[in-house]
């Protein structure tokens, strides 16, 4: 019933643990794997390109524009998009986005405004990041009563609607701030750090308990080594994602405050204040609102999608 099998096939070779251990999947480092997944995410890639483009435009356009942001052309106010100048000195020069009610070139104002909007957002988020990491780090590291009190404070701050606080603070700081830029940053940073603080604290507490940290301690690793080798790499990805997602929220706050008249003061402008100007002439010259509106939305959208992409890329549960 059985086929006969050559005897030499039954030669003993013994176990070979190594070959069994060799994984069929190639092992990939965490960072490289995250990058691979990020680049596979087309939406995130496109968003990164848009973000870089927007940044370049805000940096470069004001240098190369034939107009300055407050230069008025009273001969052609509220000119449509693509208007060609007819006056002698600037004949043939194009107002790409048209001009506003005072005859100012909207193209250069858009990118000047973008500079300020993005600067406010970046600085505010950076301050939030610093404060949040320090506050959350201390809270999580100390633990016990200190942690308890510090987190109750955060909870109370979170209980007050943040826009209300920002408006109040903006009112106070704004009165001694001629540009309105610093006060926006201060007001937003005063309440914006709580999210980051909670996140960092959560990370620190969770990691303090984690077995691999305890194992590292048991193996005699010093505190600095634990922080550098274990805490940081594990928290970094989450913090980066949080920062990316905090930027659109800061941009929104700036735009919102500018829109209700609490933003940067003349002669400065931001996307929010441009939108605010645009809404008054909206029914006649809709493009004056569209342009800043699209800039705000596109920036927020790009950062949101890019942040989502980053989060998915870093999420170890999604590793394959």
């Amino acid at each position, binding site marked *: 019933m059985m086929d006969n099998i050559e005897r030499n096939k039954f030669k003993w070779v013994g176990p070979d643990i190594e070959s069994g251990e060799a994984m069929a999947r190639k092992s990939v480092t965490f960072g490289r794997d995250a990058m691979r997944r990020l680049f596979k995410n087309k939406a995130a890639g496109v968003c990164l390109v848009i973000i870089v483009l927007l940044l370049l435009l805000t940096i470069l356009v004001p240098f190369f524009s034939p107009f300055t942001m407050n230069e008025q052309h009273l001969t052609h106010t509220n000119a449509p998009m693509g208007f060609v100048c007819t006056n002698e000195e600037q004949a043939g020069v194009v107002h790409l986005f048209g001009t506003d009610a005072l005859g100012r070139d909207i193209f250069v104002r858009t990118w000047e405004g973008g500079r300020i909007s993005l600067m406010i957002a970046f600085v505010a988020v950076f301050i939030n990041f610093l404060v949040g990491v320090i506050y959350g780090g201390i809270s999580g590291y100390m633990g016990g009563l200190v942690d308890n009190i510090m987190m109750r404070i955060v909870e109370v701050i979170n209980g007050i609607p943040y826009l209300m606080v920002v408006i109040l603070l903006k009112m106070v700081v704004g009165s001694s701030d001629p540009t309105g830029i610093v006060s926006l940053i201060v007001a937003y940073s005063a309440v914006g750090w709580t999210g980051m603080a909670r996140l960092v604290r959560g990370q620190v507490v969770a990691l303090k308990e984690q077995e691999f940290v305890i194992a590292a301690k048991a193996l005699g690793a010093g505190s600095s080594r634990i922080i550098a080798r274990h805490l940081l790499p594990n928290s970094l990805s989450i913090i980066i994602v949080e920062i990316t997602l905090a930027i659109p929220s800061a941009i929104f706050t700036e735009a919102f405050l500018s829109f209700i008249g609490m933003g940067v003061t003349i002669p400065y402008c931001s996307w929010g204040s441009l939108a605010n100007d645009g809404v008054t002439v909206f029914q006649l010259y809709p493009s004056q609102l569209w342009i800043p509106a699209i800039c705000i939305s596109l920036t927020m*959208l790009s950062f949101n999608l890019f942040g989502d992409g980053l989060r998915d890329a870093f999420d170890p549960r999604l590793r394959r």
Partner: protein
Amino acid sequence: MLKYILKRVGYTVVTLFALLTLTFFIMHALPGDAFTGQKAIPPEVMANLEAKYGLDKPIGEQFVMYVGNFLRGDFGVSIKYNRPISTIISESFVYSLDLGVRALLFAVIAGVLLGILASVKRGTGWDTAAMLIAIIGVSVPSFIVGSVLQYFLGLQLFQATGIKFFAVTGWDAFNSKILPAFALSFGSLATISRLMRTSMLDVLGQDYIKTAKAKGLSNRKVIWKHAVRNAIMPVVTVLGPIAAAVLTGAFVVERIFSIPGLGKFFVQSVRENDYTMIAGTTMFYGTFLILANFVVDLAYGFIDPRVKLEGGK
């Protein structure tokens, strides 16, 4: 449960007190003082202010008076209008509340449904479409949504068809309420649908869903009777912040659609540097939202049986 309620009451009181202290000291921190530093204040307004806030008394006493006034529902006097702020609020807040409640209801219902749809049809075109709507909602501020709707659905559609589907301004007929309510709800709808989707995906991976399936329940029953009930918990917890977003968002939406709500007054007072009005309205909004948060927390305690017995996490 009692412990949980007491804890929430405690938090609410402390937060309210923090808000009061903040507004009080901010009013005093304003350069030259909000009350006395303004040159343009007419004498009769000034007299009114002094009586209200006891400006000649020491600061500690002023604070006690301030808290007392607040507890009596007195938010001070508007410098510009020389009228009690509480009167202005009682006249205009009904519009804001009407708008806010409509927007909130729509955001919650549509957001939850969209989130469920996206999670159940995960990875399909439905999911992509729902999440595209959500990401746009999260990224486009309400004043832009409002302007876009007003321009296309209000103006252009009217010009193209000659039929007035949506009124562009005001707050009276039903067709004047649709666009502002939608504009106001869009961002929250997006936040809720994203949260609901994540929460649903999490719940659908839980063991008790497998148990429900192993009982032989149909997919529909598993989703509606077991998954949604559990997945909706995180959505309930964010209702407080969502309400805050809706109410503050109303500032700009009311401005765009010329709705005579409190938000419009608020924006106006900002433009006119009516400091007492700003502080009074802020305090009112703050109180309202802190109380709303409290109600949401209590509701959560009743919905989640785990909180009911253990007295909170």
